[in-house]
Every structure is written in structure tokens, then in C-alpha cells.
């Protein structure tokens, strides 16, 4: 019986035996999920442009008043009806100049300043209505997906709300409740803001609820939920710790859709003349005020219209890219 050299430790023995299988270089650090999502997102050119434009518009309307500090409501009747500065390119005689790059309206208010403050309102309405709709939709979706008893009633209710005639009802609600809310909040702008945000949110949460419910129903049957339940986690803990983080991607996608609809609905209401009061510009309001004189000053219709469309287009592209980036089946292809 020959004496065998006993290695110092079993690990070293393994290293000797399987040495050929060990990588010479250190392996790459593991990639996080969000890194993967970002890499996939960057491949979608439209989504990157959309996200960039949305960021730009949001920053522009937040920081705009500090950089361009003309008041949007200040009347300057001597300098009324300026054309935008680019008219000088083909018409040297035009009333235009860098003092008012986008021109002034029929009362001499600076259009650039109006655009900025109008964008503030439109974006504020869009973001807050979207957040509110997401909260309602997620709550209803989680409740009906997780609690079996609530499912039937909540989903029938969602179906019923889906078959409401949205635009007529919104118009009706806004006209009926304008006066009391205005007196309740003290100022017409604030009352109108609350009214429009809640009306848009109350009529656009249904899609989110349906998507979240579907995902929760599938996730609920997975092993990790069973594990969480078997160690005695409470329902609230399971929902907030385990279920919600897993449905964050469909929620994000429907958030972008919600933002787009909210901006369009607010502008449509302003356009139809049931939105904010007239000395309180929003993009839709600026557009509808300009329609009467669009033969002489087409740019006043075009500028807010292009801004609304570009914002909504960029949000839609962002949503498209997010959907691709957050879907693990598409990612990496």
C-alpha cells in the first residue's frame, strides 16, 4: 500500500483535478436586471428620442419662467400681433424680433411665456391625473387579483365603467361641478385643476386595473408566493414586498399611455371651452383661442398643436420602448 500525497484541503484537490475547467480570467460581475433593461431600451431609437424630448419639455416648463421672465399675462397693446422671429427670413418688413421670439397675441402677451406657463399646467394635469389613475387602477387590480371574493364584483364594475360614454360624461361633470369646486377652493384655477385631474383619473384607470389583475392572478400561483405565505407573511406584506415589485413593468407601460391620454383629454376639454378659465393659458386653450384668427396668424395654432403632438408622440414612443425593454422575452434579442 503506497502512501498517497494527501492534499492540504479538499478544495485544493478539486482545483487540481478540475483545473482545466476553471476560467483563467475572473468572470464578469453579474448584471443587474435594470442594467439589462437600460441596454435594451437604448437600442430603441424612438424611445430614447421620446424620453429625451419628454425630459426636455418637462425641464423647459419647470425652469422656463426663470430663464424667460416675461409675464404670460402682461398686456402690451402697443406690441400686439408680432409674428414669430423666423418670419424675418422671408419677409424683412414683418413685425418680429428677438424680443418676442414666438411673437405676441392680439393683446400683446408674449407667446413664448404663454407656452411655458401653458405647458406647466398641461404637464401638471397630465402627471397628476396619470399618478392618480395608476393608484386607483393598481389598487383595484391588486384587490381583484389577490382576493378571490372581491374579484367578480370589482371586474364587473370595471367592465361597467369601461362602457360609460367617457367624453360626454366628462363634459357633463366638468360643467356641473365647476361652480361649487371653484367656490370651495377659493380660486377658479385651483378648483378647475382638481376637477379636471379627478375626472380624467376616474375615467382612465380601467386598463391598468385589468392588466395588473391579470398579472397578479398569474404571479399568485408561483412558488415564491407560496413560500412567503408558508413562513407566515401577512397578505399586506405579500402584496407590497412580493407582488407589487413584480408588476412594476406593466404599470410603467400603462403609466406612459395614461400620461398621453391625460394630456390629450385636458387639451380637448380646453379646446371645447370647458377647461381652465381664459386668462389661465394651457396648450389646448391657446390652440382653441387661436383658431378664430388662424387665417391671419396660422403659427398661433401650429405652435401649441405641434407641442401637444410632439409631447404625446414622445410619450407613446417611450411607452413602446419601455414595453420592449421590460419584456424579458424580447430583451437580448
Amino acid at each position, binding site marked *: 500500500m503506497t502512501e498517497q500525497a494527501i492534499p492540504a484541503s479538499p478544495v485544493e484537490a478539486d482545483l487540481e483535478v478540475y483545473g482545466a475547467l476553471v476560467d483563467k480570467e475572473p468572470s464578469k460581475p453579474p448584471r443587474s436586471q435594470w442594467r439589462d433593461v437600460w441596454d435594451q431600451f437604448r437600442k430603441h431609437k424612438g424611445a430614447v428620442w421620446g424620453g429625451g424630448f419628454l425630459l426636455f419639455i418637462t425641464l423647459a416648463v419647470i425652469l422656463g419662467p426663470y430663464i424667460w421672465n416675461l409675464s404670460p399675462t402682461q398686456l402690451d397693446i402697443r406690441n400686439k400681433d408680432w409674428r414669430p422671429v423666423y418670419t424675418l427670413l422671408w419677409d424683412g418688413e414683418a413685425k418680429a424680433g428677438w424680443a418676442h421670439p414666438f411673437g405676441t397675441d392680439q393683446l400683446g402677451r408674449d407667446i413664448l411665456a404663454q407656452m411655458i406657463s401653458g405647458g406647466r399646467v398641461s404637464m401638471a394635469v397630465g402627471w397628476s391625473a396619470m399618478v392618480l389613475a395608476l393608484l386607483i387602477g393598481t389598487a383595484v387590480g391588486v384587490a381583484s387579483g389577490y382576493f378571490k371574493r372581491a374579484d367578480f364584483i370589482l371586474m364587473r364594475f370595471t367592465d361597467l365603467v369601461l362602457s360609460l360614454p367617457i367624453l360626454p360624461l366628462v363634459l357633463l361633470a366638468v360643467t*356641473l361641478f365647476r361652480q361649487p369646486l371653484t367656490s370651495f377652493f377659493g380660486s377658479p384655477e385651483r378648483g378647475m385643476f382638481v376637477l379636471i385631474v379627478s375626472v380624467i383619473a376616474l375615467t382612465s384607470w380601467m386598463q391598468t386595473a385589468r392588466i395588473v389583475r391579470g398579472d397578479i392572478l398569474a404571479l399568485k400561483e408561483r412558488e415564491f408566493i407560496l413560500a412567503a405565505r408558508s413562513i407566515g407573511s401577512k397578505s399586506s406584506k405579500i402584496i407590497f414586498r412580493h407582488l407589487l415589485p413584480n408588476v412594476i413593468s406593466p404599470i410603467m407601460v400603462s403609466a406612459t399611455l395614461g400620461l398621453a391620454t391625460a394630456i390629450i383629454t385636458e387639451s*380637448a376639454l380646453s379646446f*371645447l371651452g370647458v377647461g381652465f378659465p381664459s386668462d389661465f393659458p394651457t396648450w389646448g386653450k391657446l390652440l382653441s383661442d387661436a383658431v378664430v384668427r388662424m387665417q391671419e396668424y396660422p403659427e398661433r395654432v401650429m405652435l401649441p398643436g405641434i407641442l401637444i403632438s410632439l409631447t404625446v*408622440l414622445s410619450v407613446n414612443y417611450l411607452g413602446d420602448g419601455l414595453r420592449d425593454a421590460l419584456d424579458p422575452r424580447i430583451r437580448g434579442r
Partner: protein
Amino acid sequence: MLNFTIRRLLLSLPTLLFISLVIFLLLQLAPGDPMAQVPLTVPPEVKQKMREALGLGAPIHVQYFKWLYQFFVVEPSVWIDHLTANSFLLGWLPDTQLSMAIDPDTGLLVQQQRVISWQTRSPVMDIVIQRMPQTLWVVGLSYVVGILIAIPIGIYSAYRHYSLFDQAGTFVTMVGFSIPPFFTGPLLIVIFSVSLGWLPSIYDTTLVVNSWDTFKIQLMQMIMPVMVLALQTTAQISRYMRSAMLDNLNQDYVRTARAKGLKEATVVMVHVLRNSMIPVVTVIALGMPAIFGGAIITENVFKVNGIGQLLLTALFANDLPMVMTLTFIFAILIVLFNLIADILYGVLDPRIRYD
């Protein structure tokens, strides 16, 4: 199939009742008194009597049931009477006179109590019947145009997946989704009426089409509103068509069809198209109410005096009976087209019927 249809029909009744309840409660919850316009010189006891005459003192469920009766029995019967008496399609039927009732005092046939517009003091349903054809023409035609454009685009961009055409189509549909009708409308007016002067910017409803020239004018004035509405439809339906075609093009039965030597045109246009139409047809039916909603804005832009514009003017004039009737008509349209979509789905896809 009949069983399936009846079941769906019964399911849609509660939906209609719920919507009517929402509209009714919205008006009940809304502050504001229908008697607010009555002068202050009217003594309180007279006011109280007027209140009772309006039915305002009655309990809320009694008011609701009376309202329901008005909307589900009286007003539809007025509509049926109109159809059988005056309309082109059903005018050959005998006059039904469903909305007439025998007056207990005189024994004569008189009209039942109607919903009266506060704005014009005439029955609401009569005005709606006058305004309906304009909306139906513009909306219906735009929907047909939209579908006719969308389906070939969808088919071709799915067949040439990721080609230049597909990319361009995706971009155009994205733009169609994003540009709201209240911008495309003025934009088209600026381009085609103001700059080029080709098309009229205002829809003239008084035009009577009786010759080739008037027909041409009618055609010209319909182009823009129809195109604005059709852009939205096209964007949506071509997306659905494309994804439905993509789902089907990789199926085994397509390979079988090709393997047995069928021409490519037959494979795509008969085998794949027929199976892809199932979801698209339901989307077409479901999209109909949304296009009526969009018509509110488009009618306002182009001054088409259809029911959308009627709703807006009634809203600004605080004409609540008119607003309620129109909102309810929109609701009925939604429920009706949901029902049609359901039934079509059952007809096209036999698997659905036996759930």
C-alpha cells in the same frame, strides 16, 4: 347561436341600467336648482307647487323610475314612430303611433308627455332626429374610409415585416395616434382652405344634393372632416391588423397551404386573412363608439351640426334634458356595439360560443 345571442343581450341590460343610474345620479348630486331661474317675486307657496308639478318633491327612487320609463319606453317609441312615418328605409311600414296615448278626458289620441329641451322648448327627440343624419354620414363614411385604408396597410406591413414600408407604416400610425383631432382639423383647414383654397372649411348642412354640381360640393365639404376622423381609425385598425396577421403568418396551417402548392396570393389573402379578421372585426365594432366621441370635437372644428355639436351647445346653454338624452344615446351606442362585437366574435370563432 341563438342561445348565445340571447345570453349576451340579457347581460347588456344591467349595463344600460348602470349607465342610466350614473347619469341620473350625476345630475342629482350636482348642485344647482332647476327653480333657480324663477323670479324672486313668485311667492314661496307657488314655488312649492311648481316644484311638485316638476316632480321634485318625490322620493329619489320614484324620480329615477319615472326617468327610466321616459328613456326606455316613451322616447324610443317616438323614434320608432318617426322611422315608420317618415324615414326612407322603413317608411313603407304602417304608422305605428306607439307614442300616442288616449287622453282620459277627451278620448282623443294625443302625444304622451315628452322630454322637453329647456333651450328650444321643443321635444328633445325631434331635434336629435333632425341632427342624427349629419353625424351618421360623416362618422359612418369616415369609419368606412378608415377601414378601407387600414386593412391593406396592415396586411402588407405584416407580410413585409421590418421592411421600409412596415417602418414607415409604424411611424405613420404612431403619429396618427398622437396628433389629436383638434389639431389635425385646424391644420387641414390652414393648409387646404386658407393656403390652397381647395376645400370649404365649414360644412354646409343646408345643401340639397340634387345635381352633379351639388354632389361635388357635398363631396368637397366632407373630405376634411372624414379624413380627420379616418386618421384616428386607420392608425388603430392597421396596428391590430398587422399584429393579427403576424400571429397567423407563422402558423402551421400556413406552411401546409404553401406545401400543397397554393399560390402565395391565395395563402395570404384567403387563408391567413380570414383567420386574422376575427380579432380585427371585433376591434372595428368596439371602436365605433369611440369614433362617435371623437366626432364631438371634429363636428365642432368643422361646424357640422350633428349630435356632437348639439351636445356642446346644450351643455353651454345648461339644457340638462338635452344633455342627458344625448349622453344616454352615446351610452346606448357603446352598449350596442359591444353587443355586436360579442356576437360577431361568436359567429366568426365557434370556440367562443361554447364557453
